[in-house]
């Protein structure tokens, strides 16, 4: 006789296992296809899993396109935009939480309205503005439009509203300047939330495809995602090379995701509670 408690647990595990399998299988397929020998990709009689692993495919893919340069561009764009988002959001969030000043509400609503404009609906005028600045195909053209983060500003404002104000008072009595109170008293307090917001913002910038696509159109300025889509057009039926290229682009982020899973989950949750 089957224990009903055991049976229901077995059912939960089975369903969860299926869900995890659905998530992970495409990545396994990528790896299997990436290391397939050339003769086995366009052969209907070949087995689905490669008979032996052709690790050289990955080196071949790396050498077929300027992946090094694209990685550098992705790093400059993502790090620049993320640091900018953290800095501007920290400053604005702190000011909205800690100070009273004329026009505060109107300025806050201006930010709120900015949040209501999905960036993708205004891509055409944004590119026109960047063209007026002669910023197309430049790092500043990639980075600067992405620096303001309404989400970051709200998160940090919420955090500083709940931060103990006595800490700042104590420092002020000791003669600390406002700037010092901000940078040495309150910013260190916000470190965990900076980490959670920073990792989510970094991943979003790193994975941003539409924006670089419309701002940059030279191979030397392409970010990794764009480069990968160009690569696909050049090697359209060499599935093993395309999957090797995808592996090159995906693997580093997979490592980041595993290492920072706690902050990522916290960031996703925080991002939804505004």
């Amino acid at each position, binding site marked *: 006789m089957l224990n009903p408690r055991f049976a229901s647990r077995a059912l939960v595990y089975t369903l969860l296992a299926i869900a995890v399998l659905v998530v992970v299988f495409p990545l396994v397929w990528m790896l299997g296809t990436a290391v397939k020998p050339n003769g086995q990709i366009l052969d209907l009689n070949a087995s689905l899993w490669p008979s032996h692993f052709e690790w050289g495919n990955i080196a071949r893919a790396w050498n077929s396109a300027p992946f090094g340069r694209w990685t550098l561009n992705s790093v400059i764009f993502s790090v620049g935009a993320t640091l900018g988002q953290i800095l501007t959001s920290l400053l604005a969030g*702190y000011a909205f*939480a800690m100070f009273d000043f004329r026009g505060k509400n109107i300025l806050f609503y201006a930010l709120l309205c900015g949040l209501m404009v999905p960036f993708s609906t205004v891509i055409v*005028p944004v590119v026109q503005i960047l063209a007026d600045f002669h910023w197309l195909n430049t790092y500043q053209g990639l980075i600067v439009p992405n620096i303001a983060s309404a989400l970051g500003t709200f998160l940090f*404002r919420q955090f500083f509203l709940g931060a103990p104000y006595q800490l700042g008072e104590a420092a002020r009595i000791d003669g600390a300047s406002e700037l010092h109170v901000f940078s040495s008293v309150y910013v260190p307090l916000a470190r965990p939330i900076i980490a959670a917001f920073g990792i989510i913002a970094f991943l979003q910038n790193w994975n941003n495809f539409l924006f670089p696509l419309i701002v940059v159109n030279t191979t030397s300025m392409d970010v990794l995602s764009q480069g990968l889509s160009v690569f696909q057009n050049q090697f359209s039926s060499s599935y093993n090379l395309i999957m090797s290229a995808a592996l090159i682009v995906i693997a580093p982020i997979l490592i980041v995701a595993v290492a920072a899973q706690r902050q990522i989950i916290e960031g996703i949750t925080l991002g939804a509670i505004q």
Partner: protein
Amino acid sequence: MWRGVKPTAARRRGGVKQPLVLPYLFIAPAVGLTVLFSLVPLGMLAYRSLFGGGVFATSLSYVGLQNYSNAFANGGTQSLEVTAVYTVGFVILTMGIGLAVALLLNVNVRGAAHLRAPFIIPLVMPSVGTALIWASLFAPQFGFINRILGGLGLHQADFTSTPSLALLMVLTFGVWQFFGENVILYLAALKTLPMDLVEAANVDGAGPWRRFRYIRWPLLRRSTVLIWVITTLTGLQTFTQIYILTNGGPNGSTTTALFYIFNQGFVQFNTGQADAMGVILFLISLFITVVQVGIFGRGARRDA
């Protein structure tokens, strides 16, 4: 969570002197850049949707609503239909699967808590890379799915040239990529439910379905509306997998409103039509957000 209605630290400080210029310096970068790259472009979009001329045109000619009627006549109507079908499918599937997996992870069995990490993987991977995996899974003849169909003696399916299958391919990718976000959000919401209510129902002998339907589901309503807003806006902004997998085809069957804007603005150089569709997509996003938040506000008050 913290509430915005708390008095600021400034007010709590009472008589202490407030800095005059510093606050403006602090907010200037965030507000200035938001105005320059969100609000000004929105104004430009609305204004220029009424004028003819190319992307970088120097002289504009007023054409009234001509761009709008051109957009509707040249595939714009179809793109709105595609957007509606895609977004509704996306919302139902990602929210349904997200809630189901969250409920499973929330069951008190050993190790379940560690299993939530895999679900964030598709979410944070570069979507061009994962969309290329999809392309190779769904490829004609040699793709995984067609190899399986062939192995079972079934007809192979051409996902890139059959309109309904192309949309299905794009949708399955969207669901695979995003449902993990809803797993995480629903799981966080489930953790905040008052356990005494759920356990009381347990003691009363209510079955799992009744416990969910009458205890948890009503308590989850606020979270559900919030997740609904986020998911809908995400669905409306789908772009990458369409660009990689179908390029909007065949015959516009996977051209969403956003892809239409991209295509008209940066490939066909019909800037006026792109701007007109931009205005329409903005108004749709705004309308949906306002309606959903309106329902949210009402639901929240009833719960209180």
